[in-house]
Structures are given as structure tokens and as C-alpha cells.
């Protein structure tokens, strides 16, 4: 699977399967969504978890240059006997995800926190991501960059408490050579200049 999609899918699989308990149900499965489940599209059953990609940052500090030679083009082409591929080293990126938990019940909230802190330790965390062919996995370093509680008790939640935990998780990634090469191979041929600017940050406008 392609860069970003592979990590998103791996992260969802990693988070999926969490169970919480209460007086009525000892094993309540927690659903996981990409983005907030729209009430008109999907049924909102508490508790649940959402995953949002919030940033993509070039990993310049760990970028290396050079060429690799292998038989499966960095896991994207099925190997054929006697054929080898030489390709540039992949482009390093950091993918930053927001993992948010939503619960109505305090016991669910605490159980979700406890399980997610185990899954996302601040050190030594890793995410297993399969390659395109499904023949190999790579273990990507994963960091908990931040945590904040965002509980609400009234107003937008209709005077019902909503217990939210926000985890900011950074996963190290890389863009495979064929994708990077396709971008590098393209040249800018025209540049359109907008002569009527309508969106200038306030700090750049004269006082």
C-alpha cells in the first residue's frame, strides 16, 4: 500500500480490538474510525476512537542519500529470478496522527486511557507496517508527542458529558522510490500568479 495509506491502515489495525467493561457489559468493543463519525452517515456508539492525520513533516534529520539494490524494488514489485533493481534511498517523513477517544462512561474513559498509553509509550513504541506485496513488515518507530484531556459536560454535547482524550502520535515513515521519482521527474512548465490577492495573513498587512 502506498505511503500514508499503509501507515493509516496499520495504525487503525493496531488500535482496533480494544475492549472496555462496565456493569452492563464486561466486553464492549471499541470501534475505530478515520475522522469523526458523522451522525448522518454512521451510527455513533460510545465509546469509540478516531484517527486523524494532522501533519506530514519531512524527516530531514535522518534522511540519507545513495542507492540500494534489491530484487523487489523496496517491496513493491514481485521478485523475478535474476532481475535486480537499483533505486534511490526512500524519502524520510514523519507522519503525525491525532488519536482521540470518546466516551460517556468514566470507567470506559479510564480503560481507554490505560490501554492507549500502553500502546503508545513515549519511548520504544513501534508500529508494524506491511510492504505493498505483503511479503515483509517494517517496524516503524512511533512516539507519543502529547496528551491532553478535553472533557466537556454541557453545551455542544447537549448537556451530556463527553469524555475525550487526545493522543498526538508521530510515526516515522518513508516515501517509496517510485513515488518520489514520479514527483522528481515532473518539471514545472508554467507558473500562474494571482494578481489579486485576497488572503494575506494579518501579520503581513500594514498596520
Amino acid at each position, binding site marked *: 500500500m502506498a505511503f500514508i495509506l499503509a501507515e493509516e491502515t496499520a495504525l487503525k489495525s493496531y488500535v482496533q480490538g480494544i475492549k472496555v467493561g462496565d456493569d452492563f457489559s464486561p466486553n464492549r468493543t471499541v470501534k475505530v474510525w478515520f475522522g469523526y463519525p458523522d451522525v448522518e452517515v454512521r451510527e455513533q456508539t460510545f465509546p469509540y476512537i478516531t484517527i486523524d492525520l*494532522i*501533519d506530514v513533516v519531512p524527516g530531514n534529520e535522518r534522511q540519507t542519500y545513495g542507492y540500494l539494490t534489491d530484487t523487489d524494488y523496496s517491496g513493491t514489485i514481485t521478485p523475478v529470478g535474476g532481475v535486480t533493481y537499483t533505486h534511490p534511498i526512500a524519502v524520510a517523513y514523519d507522519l503525525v496522527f*491525532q488519536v*482521540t477517544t470518546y466516551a460517556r462512561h468514566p470507567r470506559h474513559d479510564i480503560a481507554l486511557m490505560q490501554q492507549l498509553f500502553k500502546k503508545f509509550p513515549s519511548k520504544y513504541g513501534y508500529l508494524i507496517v506491511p510492504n505493498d506485496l505483503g511479503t515483509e513488515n517494517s517496524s516503524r518507530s512511533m512516539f507519543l508527542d502529547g496528551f491532553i484531556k478535553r472533557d466537556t459536560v454541557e453545551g455542544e454535547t447537549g448537556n451530556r458529558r463527553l469524555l475525550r482524550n487526545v493522543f498526538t502520535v508521530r510515526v516515522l515513515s518513508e516515501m517509496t522510490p517510485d513515488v518520489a521519482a514520479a514527483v522528481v521527474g515532473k518539471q514545472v512548465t508554467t507558473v500562474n500568479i494571482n494578481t489579486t490577492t485576497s488572503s494575506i495573513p494579518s501579520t503581513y498587512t500594514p498596520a
Partner: protein
Amino acid sequence: MQNGAETLEQYAKELAAELTPRLTTDLHIIAHQSGWPEDLIKVLKVDLSPTLQLEVTYPEENKTEVEDMEYGTPSQLPNAAIRPFILRAPKIIENFLETRTLPEMFVKLGVW
């Protein structure tokens, strides 16, 4: 006469006075690109804390609005700006220190 640590602390404060407005502008640009409303962008600032840590600050009365934009709400997806800024800030600071201040710092501390 000031010792080396006091000179360095004083110099760090002088640098911060020059650096924080630049960082604030960078933060505003990222917030603008993330679709934050202009009136909320204006309240964001990068300041130097009493312990000489750079931090993003905003008035207490804007806390909910800022955090709603940053982390999302039950009906709105996150439009992160502060976290992307924090990830990029070290590089901005590094460039500033490399090109502008390291030679000055060495001169002030009597290294050169």
C-alpha cells in the same frame, strides 16, 4: 562584573526578544494555512517563559476556542496549527542561531 552564566542568560533574553516575534509570525502563517479565523490567530503568541523556555501562549479567555481548533470538537475535525508549528520550530531556531547568533555569542563570551 557579570560571570559567564549571567552573560549567557542576559544574551539569551536579548536573543529571545528578537526571535519570538519571528516565531509568532511563523505560527500565525501555519494557523492561517490551517484555516483558523483571523481574530483567533491574532491572540496566539510565542513567548519566553521565566525559565527561559519558548512556549506558545494565548489569553485564558480564548483557551476553549484555541483548543477546539487545535484538537477538534465533537462536531469538527482538528485543524492543528500549534503542534505543526512546534515540530517545525527547532529548525527555524537552528537557522536563526547558526546564521545570526553563534558568532556573536562567542564574541560576547570571549571565546574569540
